């Protein structure tokens, strides 16, 4: 699903690489936590997976494609096959919940009839049935993140990438979001989640990848957030 072969990434005008010589593989159907302090290279890792950046050296394969060799005009098509969720939700404040999800389908040219069918389905799935016509501003943070997850999942992607999805949520809402992501994972979708949330990582007991100063320092099958020092 995701394969990094000796990937390094150095941004222009920076001496230290943001990611240095990282090699790993994430299989189909896995649930993987990406942990590490700020500046450890987590964001760069995710940006490389989304082909927002290209590696300086090495090769990044996502969904069977070598992203370094993928031409620009093919990138949108590749992104349709994965879903993304962010800490700040990234919803459109002037559109309703249903319109926010529908927007993602409209802009990739899906016909109206298909949109009208799948949007209520996915909103039910994330537990927002009945809130289709609410505005994002009227919802709690947890509910807003559910809208974002619904939008990411509406195309039934093979891979869901989440960048600190619980970063803005209280523990109770965070648990709800994690249950939802776990359920999505059980449908066969690979989930890659960057997080700072120790409690969640420790509780879920999934594979943990830890980055530190751009280096891969730990890759543990049923890991916890960090070693006790």
């Amino acid at each position, binding site marked *: 699903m995701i394969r990094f072969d000796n990937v390094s990434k150095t941004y222009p005008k920076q001496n230290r690489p943001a990611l240095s010589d990282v090699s790993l593989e994430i299989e189909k159907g896995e649930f993987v936590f990406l942990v590490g302090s700020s500046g450890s290279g987590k964001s760069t890792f995710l940006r490389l997976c989304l082909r927002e950046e290209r590696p300086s050296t090495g090769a990044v394969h996502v969904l069977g494609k070598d992203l370094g060799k993928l031409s620009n005009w093919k990138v949108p098509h590749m992104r349709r096959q994965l879903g993304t969720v962010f800490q700040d939700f990234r919803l459109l404040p002037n559109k309703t919940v249903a319109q926010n999800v529908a927007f993602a389908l409209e802009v990739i*040219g899906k016909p109206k009839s298909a949109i009208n069918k799948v949007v209520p389905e996915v909103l039910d799935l994330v537990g927002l049935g009945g809130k289709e016509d609410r505005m994002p501003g009227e919802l709690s943070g947890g509910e807003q993140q559910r809208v974002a997850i619904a939008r990411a999942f509406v195309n039934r992607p093979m891979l869901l990438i989440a960048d600190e999805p619980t970063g803005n949520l209280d523990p109770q809402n965070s648990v709800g979001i994690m249950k939802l992501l776990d359920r999505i994972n059980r449908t066969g979708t690979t989930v890659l989640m960057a997080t700072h949330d120790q409690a969640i990582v420790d509780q879920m007991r999934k594979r943990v990848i830890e980055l530190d100063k751009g280096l891969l320092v730990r890759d543990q099958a049923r890991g916890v957030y960090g070693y006790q020092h």
Partner: protein
Amino acid sequence: MRAQFVLSEIGVGLRRNLTMTIAVVVSVALSLALAGASLLVRDQVNSMKGYWYDKVEVSIYFCTKSDAKTSAQCSAGAATDQQVQDVKAQLDKMTQLVQSSTFESSAEAYKRWKDTNPDNPLLAAVGADAMPQSWRVKLNDPEKYDVVQSAFAGKPGVKSVEDQRKILENLFGLLNGLQTAAFVIMVLMLFVALLLIVNTVRVSAFSRRRETGIMRLVGASNFYVQMPFIAEAAFAALLGAVMASGLLLAGHFFVQNFLAQRVQFIHFIGLSSVLTVIPLLVVLGMGMAGIAAFITLRKYLKV
């Protein structure tokens, strides 16, 4: 591509950015109106050239008695009949060049001058013999004036060879100058319009960065992300082109109903010329705006 979705996006974009849109529309309108005006002036000059050059003649003037003192060419006094006939004989031999030639005697010249200047105070003082006799030569190709000039200037009895085109050329020079001025102003206005379009698209892209960010995230194609902005710029340019067309039509009706009544010696170009220029302006305006928007977006909306 769903038309309704794109149209609503364009509407939102233009409304959100209303003042800039107005600036773009007006500057595009002015630059296109000037572009159209400069094209029309060119048409007008060409049509006038065609019309007048058919009528112009080269005049070969002969010396009169009074020229003997004032012109070195005529020191021998008035031209003799023989000299006039010699010139005629030579003209008749230039069949390639000369279409026809007619003789104007001093009396005829005097009469014509009297008819065109009935109030001139010199009229009483000047007699028919002060007016030169001349050959009025019509050329097959009015551009070949030089040949006639060099063949006859300096011949005995010939005072001067004059091309009526010279007189017209002043007028055409003026019109060409106007055309160049319109063109220069058009280029400047076009430049201003382009800068405005680039800036408008930038502001528009910035104010909708949330939308475009999400579009890129969910895998909307570049075309889908950029289309609303390009269509927005092209639509503003279309409004500008419509305004420019209105200005040109207004100018046309002013010329038809006002100038044409007063300046009857000029044949003005018709509505059809204006109507052929208008689609050109629409294409030019929309194409230019679309391309400017596209180039701007390449920089501001990366994949």
